[in-house]
């Protein structure tokens, strides 16, 4: 599923990243790589998403979220 389909307060793992090399470079540099576990802190319409991963609060634009393929982890 796509990152933006996740609900608030869920945990998930990054499966794949799709986009041009610029996008991949940027998203890698902020720590989102395949296998990386994160939690969804905020997911409001028309707002960037807020994720927490590698001790970092990350804000990700809505169109950027579409390039991140994820899998939900059930606790």
């Amino acid at each position, binding site marked *: 599923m796509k990152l933006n389909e996740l609900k608030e307060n869920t945990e998930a793992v990054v499966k794949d990243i799709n986009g041009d090399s610029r996008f991949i*470079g*940027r998203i890698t540099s902020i720590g989102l790589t395949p296998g990386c576990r994160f939690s969804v802190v905020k997911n409001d319409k028309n707002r960037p998403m807020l994720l927490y991963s590698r001790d970092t609060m990350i804000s990700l634009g809505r169109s*950027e979220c579409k390039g991140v393929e994820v899998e939900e982890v059930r606790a």
Partner: protein
Amino acid sequence: MSTATIALLGQPNSGKSTLFNALTGLKQHVGNWPGKTVEKKEGSFARNGVTYDVADLPGSYSMSANSDEEVITRDFITSGKADVVCILADSSQLERSLFMLADYAGIDAPCFLVLNMEDVAKDQGKTVDVALLEKKLGIPVMMFSATDTKAYDQFYFTLERALKEKSHINVSELEKEYEKIIGYNEIKEQIKGGNISGYTPMWLTVKYLENDKVVSAKLKESLPADAASKIESIGLDANGAIATGECKFKWIDELLEGAVNKTKTGVKLGKLDRIYTHRFWGKPAVVLTVILGLLGSFIPALPIMAVASIFDVLKNVIGDALVSVGCPAFVTGLVCDVVIQSFSYIVKMLGFVFGVTLVFGMLEEVGVMARISYVFDNTMGKLGLQGKSVMPFLVSFGCTMGGAAGARVIDNWGQKVLTIALAWAVPCGAAWAIIPMLSTVFFGAGAPLIIVVLLLVMILHMWITAKIFGRTLVKTEDRCGMIMELPPYHKPKWGALFRYVFGRTKDTFFRVVKVVLIVCLIFYILSYGSGVNDTSILYKVGTAIEPVTKIFGLPWQLFIAFVASSVGKEGAVGVISALYAGGSYGEGFMAAMSGAARAANLNELLLANVSRPEALAFIFAITFNLPCVVALAATYQEIHSVKWTAKIAIYYTVGALILACLAYHVGLMIW
């Protein structure tokens, strides 16, 4: 005295700017990298008989070639200009922030690692085993808190050590990870033969795998033809950057294993962040924050503004003295109305700039600005801007110069220029002092409607301006959506911040003085008439081209007032007042310069001489004209480009006349 050059490298929010300001203080120089639209910050300090030149490398996230900033950073480091590179990471989030170090590993330049934000990490219950990290990495490593004055001795000590040891990062474990990637060994084998200074074959191979265009081109150029074609024939994963990224993070994880102790990881948003990220309250909270910041910036500004009133006293005293010794009127005017008056203006404005830079610089350092970016990202993104741009816009309702100074927190040059260009469309405090007055005189109860229309036109103006300039300033391929960290809040370093703000205000002062004096002098000469109207050049030109300006709805008196409003909007009414009262233009202009002397019967004068469509045209013309000469100078100071400053200024002058023309003809249809 010997010299050494240090380059500071770190992701945004690593505390790089704070360290740079603390190290160099007032000894800074800000310009642009030659031929590039990227800000260049350099500074220096002396210690133990050594002069250190510090280069604050432009903000980037990695050592890739995705932006001009990153290419410049990379070229600077590998050119050998830096004796040592200081890599900064945030010790409260090492897992992520060591990425820069991992991406740097393999570049052939000595470095050391500074783990900043020690205080934040401590608060989170994290401890770092620096000795273990040093052992694993093979370079000097230190914990640091850029806001702690006592920490600097340790910094200087580590710096001296790094300069002596000139050590490189131990990459053997990292390379073991890379070797697992398909094609890595084959490519590296070919690259080994080439000779590209500054980089190791490992680093070049990784960048090639990442589809780095600059590196690919360099390899093609420097490798023998057969090696180059062999590399090209090796089948690669299209997403090499993902694979290498995984390697880098794996290496970081191994590096940190046993070196970092953490008690807990908090995922919860703080109270303040719950408000800022609230779906409904977020925007009002940001607007309120900016307004409070704006009000707060008057506290440090007021004492400086008070100094400006000395100039008003000086002007009268010196003016009287010059007249009494029989000095020619032209010279008296030059001294009092151009030089002294200009300084009075400049100092008043500088007070405001000082306050704005201090308060918004503080908000940036504390981490509030990142929240503002988050909240307004969607809205500002439509204009091709960062969410932060909302702040200069709001500040510009008070003063455009403050808006320009506030745009400093925008880290991309093109977006900064575009933000300032759009902020000019926001009517400033001086415009708000005239527009309601003029609207009420001519349109009575319809005045609020005029103001609403002006605000709508402002939004439309900004949208069109963004379309026109956005294409060149913020190229579509450079438009990157938001991928940003919301940093933990931290305390500002007041000493460094104050020194930095003083330094910048001083720079602004010198640049502004030049521009303002020149522009005011030109206006003075153009408008100088020996007591009678028809001797000044402006009057002659104004009356001669009146048939043309009438098309825009501006009789010559209003046109000249429009021209004068480019110097300062406050003056526009003073000019009309003088002209319609039958005074000389020269006097009117001087009156305008010193702050709008109005005839007592101004309302009757206006109503008797100006029709409603003309008044409407005039209101539009001055509202959307360039804000004032000081804002022009401040814009130049922030964007370091004569070309773009001139472009924006001409665009606004022409744009204001077009809007006036439209307003006039709409007015003619109504009345």
